[in-house]
């Protein structure tokens, strides 16, 4: 008898339809031409009247991935097996809280129903939603809990490229995914330009383009020429290794646009980890020191000196020219992504005593 029950259970579970095919309700959105100026990691193909095609590529020698999604503008388009967004998005799941900055600019935070790493959410609005229970955690530290994800059943799940191997797993369960690799861009404006991609999938093209144009204008207006007398180096070591940004990274280019001359600008490849000894020898006479790291709220220059006795001998410390961004008390990793103009302004003006900074401050 038990055997028969077991067989029946097996029979019925095998009949469960696991695929969750969306009912295609085509929303005819206006055809908007998006021109990509700086970003290298995605492109928008607007050549066809029936759809826009978003193409994601790795744009990096170290990685090899690609993704694409069709945004349909006409009910005559047959997507076939292609990944299509045929209806207006009602809810989103995100693997990185960085994406919240783009959603915030486009006033689409209300679409978020699942976030990986709730502790990194700084948004007051979203925190209220989390407390209400309308936004739930779908994983932590990069790992995704499939059951939590299925429970919220998002229209689109925005993922990191390193989640690429799991993409089929999500798609087989009816969850559409899109790789977002904004962090692999090499300039702050290129990273900001991913806003246009978000504008496209959320049908907020005009808002995205207007915001992008305004910030780009602000940024370029402030940009300074490289001043070779303003020698600088980055960050703090962890044990024996000192992790420095690649000279073609977003951070290094932001600092260069503020006129600083990065002493390790020869690091054009990924080998950016320097030994502590090398940094000590080279950084001693550097005029500026820019630190982007997580420290307690009221971190001071004295606290920095207490971390390592040699720091008191650095020219930057002696001359009070240590510029600091506390990643645990500022929105550097979230809103900083869409406010490169403010970050640039901070870097240029934070030495002024009357200046009120948002991201970078002079360490006192």
């Amino acid at each position, binding site marked *: 008898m038990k055997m028969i029950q077991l067989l029946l259970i097996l029979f019925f579970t095998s009949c469960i339809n696991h695929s969750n095919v969306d009912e295609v309700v085509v929303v005819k959105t206006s055809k908007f031409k998006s021109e990509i100026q700086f970003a290298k990691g995605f492109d928008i193909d607007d050549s066809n009247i029936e759809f826009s095609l978003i193409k994601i590529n790795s744009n990096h020698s170290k990685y090899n991935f690609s993704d694409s999604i069709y945004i349909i503008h006409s009910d005559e388009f047959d997507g076939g097996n292609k990944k299509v967004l045929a209806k207006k998005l009602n809810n989103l799941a995100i693997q990185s809280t960085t994406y919240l900055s783009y959603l915030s600019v486009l006033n689409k935070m209300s679409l978020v129903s699942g976030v990986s790493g709730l502790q990194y959410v700084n948004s007051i609005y979203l925190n209220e939603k989390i407390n209400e229970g309308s936004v739930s955690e779908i994983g932590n530290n990069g790992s995704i809990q499939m059951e939590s994800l299925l429970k919220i059943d998002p229209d689109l799940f925005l993922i990191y490229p390193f989640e690429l191997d799991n993409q089929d797993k999500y798609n087989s369960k009816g969850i559409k995914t899109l790789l977002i690799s904004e962090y692999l861009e090499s300039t702050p404006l290129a990273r900001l330009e991913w806003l246009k991609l978000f504008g496209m999938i959320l049908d907020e093209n005009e808002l995205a383009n207007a915001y992008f144009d305004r910030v780009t204008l602000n940024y370029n207006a402030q940009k300074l020429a490289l001043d070779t007398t303003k020698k600088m180096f980055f960050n703090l070591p962890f044990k*024996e290794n000192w992790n420095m940004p690649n000279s073609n990274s977003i951070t290094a280019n932001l600092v260069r646009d503020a006129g600083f001359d990065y002493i390790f600008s020869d690091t054009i490849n990924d080998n950016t980890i320097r030994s502590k000894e090398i940094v000590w020898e080279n950084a001693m006479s550097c005029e500026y020191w820019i630190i982007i790291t997580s420290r307690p709220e009221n971190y001071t220059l004295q606290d920095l000196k207490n971390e390592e006795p040699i720091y008191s001998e650095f020219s930057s410390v002696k001359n009070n020219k240590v510029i600091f961004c506390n990643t645990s008390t500022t929105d550097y990793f979230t809103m900083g992504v869409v406010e490169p103009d403010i970050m640039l302004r901070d870097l240029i003006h934070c030495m002024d005593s009357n200046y009120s900074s948002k991201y970078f401050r002079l360490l006192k």
Partner: protein
Amino acid sequence: MRRNRDIWLLSILLIVLIVLSIWSVSVGDVSIPFNELFTILKGDLSANESWSYIVEGRLNRTIIALLSGGALSVTGLILQVFFKNPLAGPGVLGISSGVTLGVAIVVLGGFSMLGLGSNLSLVCSGLLGALVILSILMVVSKFIKHSITLLIVGLMLSYFSSALVSALYHWADLEQSRQFIIWGLGSFDGISSQNISWILPVVLFSIGSLTFLIRPLNGFALGEDYAKSVGINIKTTKALLILISSLLTAVVTVYCGPVAFIGIAVPQIVRGVTQSKSHQIILPLAVVFGALFALLADLGIRLTGNVLPLNTVTSLIGSPIIVWTIIRMNKRS
């Protein structure tokens, strides 16, 4: 004759250790001329200000490697005699895991936010963790006949501690977890002169106090009944050995992370090179061999661009020695 051979061996090893220590201070990513090195070590001003800090860093690293190697090796030796098991060691018996749990409670448990994350509180919590594990092992060892069973109990205690640490990760933030994971990989780098100024006397005093316990250790090596028959105070000796081995393991583990294999492998090397059964010979050899093992491992790391974690190197050297010990044990039985 044999004793003379051992003294010669010890003398040669000490010379090798001194030469390697000088080399350890002189090599690094920044090339410092030898005359400048000598000037800095004399306490005079160097041509390049950063060099004096670089030399200080290398010197501290060398001292910590020597102290940790000696301390862990001696701890392993004590535990092997204490539990009459050649495979005993702070790592295998779960004592290092006990220290790790103590440190994890302070670091990942958020007590550092309350100002309890100081070095002293870390050492105290680590020491407490080591003492708890050792006490459990002592109680369990009374009910166990086979020495291998004790190792399995140690392994289970280690798993249990690790499971509790994993649970603590759940409440820790990403930065705390990252720091704890990197600490767990082990390193002799980044320990300040201020910390060394108190680690040095604690380790030297603990190892030095063992010279007064050579007779009891020799007695224990021949069995507890024999030790009793020659008038050794078993209770006091046991308490002292537990305290010393726990203190040494806690101090080294808190500052350098749970360093694998030195405690278990080095006493095996010592037994392989000397036929002496006296701890008057075995103990200093264990200290010197342990220091040499740790210094060579650290030099290996530094010469390969500081890429490899300490535990990777000690495991690469230590695990074949343990396999060799197990084969030797099986041959004997």
